[in-house]
């Protein structure tokens, strides 16, 4: 009798230890998510929020409207491509600079870290506006320097995406760089030395030694980047003025904002939010599985 009581108490201990985390997570995360799911099933606009008009249950109506809208599909498609591009470039830039950090002297390292941290610390809003000034068609410094007066960087869809993508990368590579640099520093010196003695260059060391050893870290960084870049909002909203010429640079989050807040269709906006959440959950699960299969502990 006594033994089973003890076991039960021991089993409950982890739950008690989870409680503080739950106290934070449930109100901050679970409840909004629950509301998001709930709202996505209703016709819920401004008259329903504040006007005393009862919210009408529409089942999956919002999702049907969404999936039947070809604009949604094209926005989803270009969000995926844009986010993928940003993730790849962010990782490439971040990893390259992390490698560079391990090879340069102290002064150069300090300067580079400081510059990267400054970019990281700049709020997305400020960064976007400053870049927009730099690339202004009439008064921008870039056009002045390149001798392209009047060139409109936002006119072509791909050029506009590339410009916004550059700002997104500029904002997010420092995280990748610092994280990977910390990881590389944690690799025993002797391992890298051995590689160097065997004649491995920077790239081979990175591919054969660092990547395999830092796989868990890289996975986390990739997932983080995917989540951030898939949810990009500020840079697109500010730089392309809410989605670009004729909506050509629209991404999912801006689209959701436009539907939910600008035009007060909170139900439809929530449905877009649910779709985004599901996509990101699938991405996360996929990576967790990949991690498990490769036998790495998290």
């Amino acid at each position, binding site marked *: 009798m006594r033994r089973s009581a003890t076991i039960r108490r021991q089993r409950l201990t982890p739950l008690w230890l989870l409680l503080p985390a739950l106290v934070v997570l449930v109100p901050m995360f679970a409840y909004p998510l629950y509301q998001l799911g709930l709202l996505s099933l209703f016709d819920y606009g401004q008259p329903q929020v504040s006007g005393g008009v009862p919210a009408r249950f529409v089942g999956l109506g919002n999702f049907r409207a969404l999936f039947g809208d070809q604009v949604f599909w094209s926005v989803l498609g270009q969000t995926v491509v844009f986010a993928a591009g940003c993730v790849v470039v962010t990782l490439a830039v971040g990893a390259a600079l992390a490698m560079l950090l391990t090879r340069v002297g102290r002064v150069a390292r300090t300067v580079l870290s400081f510059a990267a941290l400054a970019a990281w610390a700049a709020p997305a809003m400020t960064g976007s506006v400053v870049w927009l000034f730099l690339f202004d068609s009439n008064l921008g410094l870039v056009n002045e320097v390149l001798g392209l007066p009047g060139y409109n960087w936002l006119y072509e869809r791909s050029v506009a995406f590339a410009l916004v993508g550059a700002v997104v990368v500029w904002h997010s590579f420092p995280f990748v760089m610092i994280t990977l640099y910390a990881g590389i520093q944690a690799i025993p010196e002797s391992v890298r030395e051995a590689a160097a003695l065997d004649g491995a260059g920077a790239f081979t060391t990175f591919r054969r030694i660092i990547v395999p050893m830092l796989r868990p870290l890289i996975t986390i960084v990739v997932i983080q980047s995917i989540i951030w870049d898939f949810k990009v909002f500020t840079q697109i909203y500010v730089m392309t003025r809410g989605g670009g010429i004729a909506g050509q640079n629209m991404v999912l989050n801006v689209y959701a904002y436009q539907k939910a807040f600008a*035009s007060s269709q909170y139900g439809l906006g929530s449905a877009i939010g649910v779709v985004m959440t599901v996509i990101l959950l699938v991405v996360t699960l996929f990576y967790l599985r990949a991690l498990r299969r490769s036998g790495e502990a998290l």
Partner: protein
Amino acid sequence: MRKPLTLTALVALALGLGACAPSTEQPTDGTDAKTGTLRVWLFDEANRAAKEAVVKEAVAEFTANRPEVKVDVSYLATETRSEKYKGALNDPASAPDVAEVGNTDLAGLVAANGMADVTEDMAKWSEAGDLPKDLVKTVTVGDKAYGVPWWIGVRALYYRTDVFTDLGLRPPTSYAELVDAAKKVRAARKDMVGITVGGQYTFGAMPFIWDAGGDIATSSGGRYTATIDSPASKAGITAYTNLFSDDICPAKQCVDLTGGGTVETFAAGRAGMGILGNFSRSAVEAGAVKGKYAVVPLPGAKPGSIAPAFAGGSSLGVFRSATHRSLAVEFMQLLAGKKYGIKLYDAMGFVPAMKSARDEVTAKEPFLKPFIDTMDAGTRFVPVDKAWTTIDAEKIVPNLLQKVITRRATVDAAAADANNQITAAFAK
């Protein structure tokens, strides 16, 4: 592992049963306190000090014989006004008593049950008869009045007198002449566009569409039907988008301009002409072209005709959740009346809505003549329906224009698309 799962399931079930529908706030009808602080929201302006002085004077007059009343005026940035309104709707305790409302915003606020019905108060007001009928329509939803038109603004054609004189041009009196003059200016002055127009400038494009006999939607029996893909509308869209050619206003430069962007371009001296409002005069005067411009009505396609202008401007209304309903109505009527209408004109150049006040300021200000001529020729308005909020927020008209300007779609395809979207907005 079993227990936490059961627990989660239970919690989920409890939550699911606990709230089966999202919360809906009942609109509160407010109260009618006769003392305390009356809260007023007005729009911020570039030269707010002048507006503030007029409002302060009105407040002083209002509180002079109401010693127990204070008036607290806040100025809202126009770009973020809709967030402020939504905040006021969602949290009645933070709502103002009296608010300035862009006349295109009103229908959405009424649909959200946010505005007080002031039909009876207006009937009792001595100055009500002085309001022109077409403006009263902009604050009327169904057959109820939800505010007072305060000031109006229409757009007309600003042109550069110095450039026109140099090139021997006359101000255009038809669309064909406008195109011709614009091309000549652009050909002679490489650093200027012939006429500054914008792909995001809905109210710059609408006169061309209205002039051709088209419209965003037409109403019959209280129902709106989208008509942006009618042949007449498409003719107007073509007329406007044809101005975005390399020899007038190159697409790359002009496609993403807003109305404000065209004001900047004209004021900076980079355009031969521009479709600007009477309310933009102070911005133009502050620019490089001070003293080098004049204004004529925007011509229609038929020689000598005037293209119908959009009746822009703002109204004053009382929030439904106002805590000082009678005081709010009295203050609204004081501010919207003839006396302060004229004072506001003197300070800001906003043309008063009141007919008698309008006549008075026109008499002393020749600058206004082309605008008044435009108003007299008949103004038009956007659909007075909550769908306008959606049409505006989803940029349906700018998207249509931009698709045509960038040649990403034909007029037919882009207009058909927009027509479907507008139809869907009305169906909600």
